[in-house]
């Protein structure tokens, strides 16, 4: 049996495309050593057994879905390709530290002459991992403790707990995540949390204690999330000097809402994409399942990216949303939309556009915002191919508007209200990508369309965010 050379394949390389190259490389030295050697590349093989070694608490049944593809392989290249795919799937479960693949000829009594055994050698993550860090910011220091139990019940369930103890606020979150075996994207999560936010632009403090359950699933090219959330919200004034309009909103309320989110994302990267588009639609219906707050909230986000000459990218985004109260109660300050700041309409201070009372911004019931960016590499491209690629320069023009709906007026009046008194600004700056989750921006902004009551940021503005216009 001249299949010994397959052995030298382990461990499989991390990157997929290199696989084929390896297979070819291996042929040459082995051919010289053994004259009986056969070229297996195009020869039919049968995968007889697939083993997973190193399993402790992981239940095997949920892994069979992930490795099932390997059995369907018809030749050696196919085996390697499929084994690699299976390896990626196993790693994606987030329960193994390491997965190695060994492909060998079948042994034993029932071994076929062209039979192969594939063995996945896995190392499980520890039962419990912990983290500890301290954070300083917002005139507050805090200590964050995190506990993670990957694979609690052996089927890739994940339990995470985070506790943050700060000089001003304490918050915590406990979440349980369970994917459907074989369909990792179809998953279910339950969260319990308490979070406290301070919003100086509104002189508002909000403490939320809540429970949410969500179910995510892919459908054709889209990803959907259905969610129920029950939150006990406690609003209060940040200072004695808070405006009376904010003071009136103080107190407790209960929101129980059903929401649906749909995402289509064809971008190549979430932070500095070169091509592709994003569409996010979010809708929330509160009040039908109990609670004090009843409203219907619609919200969308759209982004297109087009690659131009010299590595520059043209990007256009549009956001919009509206909040309709159901019943006689007016909308709550915590549910309304806010606009402005270094990651939305640049050139304005954080959430400082639209209706306000005594300097406290109250938010609006309907808004839109749009932006056009031209991203280019840094001038003269310092650090090309390395650190420099984390940076981009950009030129932007962004605009938006935020207002309240007066429900007697009808849709035409609302549209004209949104079209007049538009806030807009333009400028240029530098963008730094932080990993694949956030970005920092340092911009020089020139606000143009400014309405009375808006707080502007004329000149240099610095911002960080995970969602940006």
């Amino acid at each position: 049996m001249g299949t010994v050379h397959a052995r030298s394949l382990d461990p499989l390389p991390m990157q997929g495309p290199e696989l084929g190259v390896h297979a070819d490389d291996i042929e040459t030295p082995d051919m010289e050593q053994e004259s009986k050697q056969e070229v297996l590349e195009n020869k039919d093989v049968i995968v007889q057994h697939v083993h997973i070694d190193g399993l402790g608490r992981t239940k095997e049944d949920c892994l069979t879905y992930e490795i099932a593809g390997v059995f369907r392989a018809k030749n050696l290249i196919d085996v390697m390709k499929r084994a690699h795919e299976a390896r990626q799937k196993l790693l994606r479960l987030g329960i193994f530290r390491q997965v190695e693949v060994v492909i060998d000829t079948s042994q034993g009594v029932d071994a076929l002459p062209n039979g192969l055994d594939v063995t996945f050698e896995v190392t499980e993550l520890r039962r419990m991992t912990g983290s500890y860090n301290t954070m300083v910011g917002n005139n507050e220091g805090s200590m964050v403790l995190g506990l993670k139990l990957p694979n609690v019940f052996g089927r890739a369930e994940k339990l995470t707990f985070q506790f943050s103890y700060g000089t001003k606020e304490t918050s915590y979150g406990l979440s349980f995540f369970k994917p459907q075996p074989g369909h990792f994207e179809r998953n279910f999560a339950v969260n319990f949390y308490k979070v406290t936010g301070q919003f100086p632009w509104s002189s508002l403090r909000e403490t939320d204690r809540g429970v949410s359950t969500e179910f995510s699933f892919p459908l054709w090219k889209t990803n959907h999330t259905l969610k129920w959330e029950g939150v006990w919200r406690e609003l209060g004034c940040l200072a004695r000097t808070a405006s009376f309009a904010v003071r009136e909103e103080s107190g407790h309320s209960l929101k129980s809402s059903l929401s649906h989110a749909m995402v289509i994302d064809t971008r190549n990267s979430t932070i500095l994409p070169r091509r592709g588009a994003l569409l996010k639609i979010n809708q929330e219906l509160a009040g039908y399942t109990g609670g004090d707050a009843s409203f219907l909230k619609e919200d969308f986000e759209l982004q297109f990216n087009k690659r131009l000459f010299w590595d520059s990218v043209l990007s256009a985004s549009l956001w919009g949303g509206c909040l309709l109260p159901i019943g006689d109660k007016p909308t709550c300050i915590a549910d309304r939309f806010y606009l402005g700041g270094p990651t939305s309409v640049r050139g304005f201070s954080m959430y400082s556009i639209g209706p306000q009372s005594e300097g406290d911004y109250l938010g609006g019931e309907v808004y839109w915002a749009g932006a056009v960016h031209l991203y280019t590499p840094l001038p003269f491209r310092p650090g090309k191919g390395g650190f420099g690629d984390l940076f981009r320069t950009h030129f932007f023009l962004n605009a938006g508007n935020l207002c309240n709906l007066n429900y007697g007026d009808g849709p035409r009046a609302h549209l004209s209200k949104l079209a007049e008194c538009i806030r807009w600004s333009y400028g240029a700056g530098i963008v730094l990508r932080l990993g694949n989750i956030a970005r920092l921006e340092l911009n020089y902004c020139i606000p143009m369309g400014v309405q009375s009551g808006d707080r502007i940021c004329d000149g240099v503005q610095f911002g960080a965010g995970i969602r940006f216009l």
Partner: protein
Amino acid sequence: MSLAAEAFVSQIAAAEPWPENATLYQPLREDQILLSDCASSLAVQAYLRMCNLPVHVSCRSNAEYMSPSGKVPFVHVGNQVVSELGPIVQFTKAKGHSLSDGLDDVQRAEMKAYMELVNNMLLTAELYIQWCDDTTATEISRPRYSSPYSWPLNQILAYQKQWEVRRKMNAIGWAGKSLEQVYEDVSQCCQALSQRLGTQPYFFNKQPTELDALVFGHLFTILTTRLTSDELGEKIKSYSNLLAFCRRIEQSYFEDSQAGSSSRGYSKGPSLF
């Protein structure tokens, strides 16, 4: 707020006259307000009426949380927000309205002592009966306190409040008292007040002071509120001069304006006599 800032604010406050649109905020009168809050609110209303300062009464289910000190009532005057009787008295004084200017230092000290007595005895007794007497808490306080909220928030908030009051009772040593002992304390407090009042129309003879407003607020509310047992009211009813005192203030400060303008917002449930 720092002392300097507070002083500055009171300076500004002094410069502005009492506006027409001053508003007093309290919990919902029909469904929500409890004996102790109602008493405190009535005391402030009586005080402002004695000062002849117009105030519009607004009922809000979140009044307690709107208040800067977390206690009701509070007044919104101009752009100032002031809560509870003591600070409100200070605030009106800064604006040049005071009821105790005619008193000498000894009388003022005496007035303060009696106000402390009322707050420590009557107010604490009201809180005790509301939240530490299980029958009252179950039948009246918890359902009323939580009436604006939906399940399960109503349960959470009511028990949270009860727990808070019980912790306070523990701290001041009232937790071990029985209901009879509390009634006895109320009785003693009334006796002290009755003796001090004697045959005078007000505690300091002809002119009402903030002490009169405070005593009226508590006694009138206890007399006109139906609880699970009448015993608290009965304790007061045995002091005829206190009853006459309540009636006098009701007639001089509440009945005339009630007929005149309903916009004053005073429509206390049952009248005393």
